[in-house]
């Protein structure tokens, strides 16, 4: 009886493992050739222009945006294309930024 139980558990466990591997294989991961991303949708700031930082919703965990894009096609991909050039990561400190991440109107 225990042997049958162990065997069933083994089979069930194997099916879960295989199912998980299949699901993982089918999950699209950013390959650098993505089309428009959520960050590409401009938000309008108070004076009608574009907002600054991309304060988008939490990313879909099944789709991870790449750090850069190979073979860029869209404007967003071009300006964030992969490159050997020197690049600087800067986290701006903006005390007057609105709480929702938008820029306040100009004085």
């Amino acid at each position, binding site marked *: 009886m225990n042997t049958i139980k162990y065997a069933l558990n083994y089979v069930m466990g194997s099916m879960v493992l295989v199912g998980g591997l299949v699901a993982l294989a089918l999950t699209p991961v950013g390959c650098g050739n993505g089309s428009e991303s959520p*960050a*590409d949708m*401009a938000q309008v*700031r108070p*004076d009608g*222009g*574009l*907002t*600054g*930082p*991309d304060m988008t919703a939490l990313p879909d965990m099944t789709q991870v945006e790449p*750090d*850069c894009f190979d073979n*860029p*096609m869209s*404007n*967003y991909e*071009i*300006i*964030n*294309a992969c*490159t*050997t*050039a*020197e*690049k*600087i*990561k*800067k986290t*701006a*400190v*903006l*005390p*007057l*930024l609105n709480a929702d991440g938008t*820029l306040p109107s*100009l*004085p």
Partner: protein
Amino acid sequence: MERNHRIGIIVATAVLAATVAEKAHAANPPCSSLSNPIVVAGSSAIAPFIKGVGGKLAGLSPAYTLVYQSQGSCTGVNAILGDATPTGACTSGACIVGTATYYDDAGNAQTCDLDLDGTHVDVGVSDVYAESCTGQPLPSGVGNWNGPVQAMSFVAPKASSAKAITAEEGYFVFGFGQNGRVTPWTDNATMFCRNQSSGTQTMLGDAIGVPAAKWAFCTDKGGTQGVIDAVSGSPNADSSIGIVAAADYDLHRDKLKILAFQGFKQKYAYYPDSTATAVDKQNVRDGHYLPWGPIHLLTAIDGTGKPLSAAAARFIGWVTGDTSVQPALPVNVLDVQIQAGTIPQCAMRVTRSSELGPLSLASPADPCTCYFEKIATGNTACKSCQSDSDCGGAETCRRNLCETR
């Protein structure tokens, strides 16, 4: 007796002063008397090109004389848009007055006098689209031609600890001044800029979302050299910031530091060049550095879109590399453009159709990326060639270099 003596001295002094003034004025020839004058006005961006070809054109037979007055991009735009009678008498404010620069056949800069009643401008030169100056679409009687590309930049003193500025930071710095509280740029007294007629300020204003007319907290230094002097001479390196064309920064790298720029929606900040010390303008050419645009050449046109002024047609053809224009430019126009710190259209791998507009990939009919790198940096990784057979299948031999088709 002594009184008469004093009167005599006063009269003699006045006569002497008038004579000196008359001779100084007489030393400048009238611009209209120069051989085949072509009157160009507006942005200082075209000055290196004029310097590079002016002397050569003056040495032709017959000679051609480029007459140039630098005033600012939007003033150049207005000189064309505001000239309702380009082939007739000057209407008020439509023509330029004062003096202008031209080059003699030895390549020396000289000064000539414009007509007292005003001189029509053949070509207005602007760093930005005319619409950016006027807020209106280009009128039907005016044509725009795009010349080589130039980039604009934020600069700091050499000793500044700053390395980069984001578009959001620029928005607060130049839109709010020290009240924007963006460290280290927290002192209005050390923020140096231009004015709303400046193409530099207009273009960078677009890049950071602050219209040129709303840069209310920085100090207008009147021109590029004023900004360079103010930034480099500022006693507080960290809080100091200014704006210049990248080509002007290149000429003053010993005094200034260029700040990498991160545009809206960009993940990183980039220099115009691939590194802080390179001179390849790689990031402008491939779209990583965003504040750039073509030099705009404006002139009155007829119903078919051709310039009304033959002089204008000639100048525009020379600048844009139209080989059908006669006489042919006696120098290699690509070399002149590159050596002037601009980027020929053929070396660009991205393009845009509006001020700081979205980028798309470019496919020039006659690419010159390799040639640009060779002239700009003195080196290129591209293969040398004599014919297409020397290159790989996806390349063609152009200017003795294998360029990607």
